């Protein structure tokens, strides 16, 4: 079946536990995700949603697998823009692997269609978020405060 995928990888100097907590703690997340956060119990089967700073829900789904601090799989569907929502569910796999003194963080996002507007949309956002997360964990501050300063 046709599919669209992207894979993003970064190496972050942190412990797996600290990185896992950075990926799942709503208040911490807001610092590197431009005010957006994800809400969930972070256990398999529990609902998951991504919430914009204004409280609107951008994406929703369910935790498929949670193996802290190693692997997280999210069933993920966009909610706010009809053309993206209509593409259906995607799957986001987040993996943390110790690599020397750092953690290799990989994010693989896949949807079973080609081409995909949804994958195009999220692929632009992830590098900024990951880069901010790395900077926040390694230096204590983010580099970008606003992803799209003009349009927001």
């Amino acid at each position, binding site marked *: 079946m046709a599919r669209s995928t992207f*894979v993003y990888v*970064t190496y972050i100097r942190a412990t797996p536990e600290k990185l896992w907590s950075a990926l799942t703690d709503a208040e911490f997340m807001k610092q590197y995700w431009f005010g957006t956060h994800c809400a969930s119990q972070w256990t398999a089967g529990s609902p998951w949603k991504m919430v914009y700073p204004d409280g609107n829900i951008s994406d929703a789904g369910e935790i498929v697998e949670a193996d802290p601090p190693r692997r997280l799989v999210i069933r993920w569907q966009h909610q706010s823009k009809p053309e993206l929502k209509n593409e259906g569910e995607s799957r986001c796999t987040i993996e943390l692997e110790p690599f020397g003194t750092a953690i290799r963080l990989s994010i693989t996002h896949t949807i079973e269609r080609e081409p995909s507007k949804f994958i195009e949309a999220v692929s632009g956002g992830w590098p900024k978020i*990951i*880069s901010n997360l790395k900077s926040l964990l390694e230096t204590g501050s983010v*580099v*970008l405060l606003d992803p799209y300063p*003009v349009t927001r």
Partner: protein
Amino acid sequence: MAERPDTDVLFKALADPSRRKLLDLLHANDGRTLNELCEYLDMTRQGVTQHLNVLEAANLVATVWRGREKLHFLNPVPLQEIYDRWIAKFEKPRLKAIADLKKRLEKGNG
């Protein structure tokens, strides 16, 4: 800030036209096998493999095994870090100026 060795690896990886071409190919169409990439480059399979290894070591290419196929994906995160480090700060005042102009014009309409 002390220069980290991975920055050297990154710029060395970018300092080659064949490797930039490989990145361009993945940018146009992500998730390709070695065979697919070889079609576009006038060099041996071993040569392409070596270039891909350099790109992978610099974290510009991420690979995923799907069955017996190794797929290569463009990983833009190190490039985003270059942007954050040297470009983002220059864009802020300009973007703020445009945002302020928009705000002022829209206020004028209301």
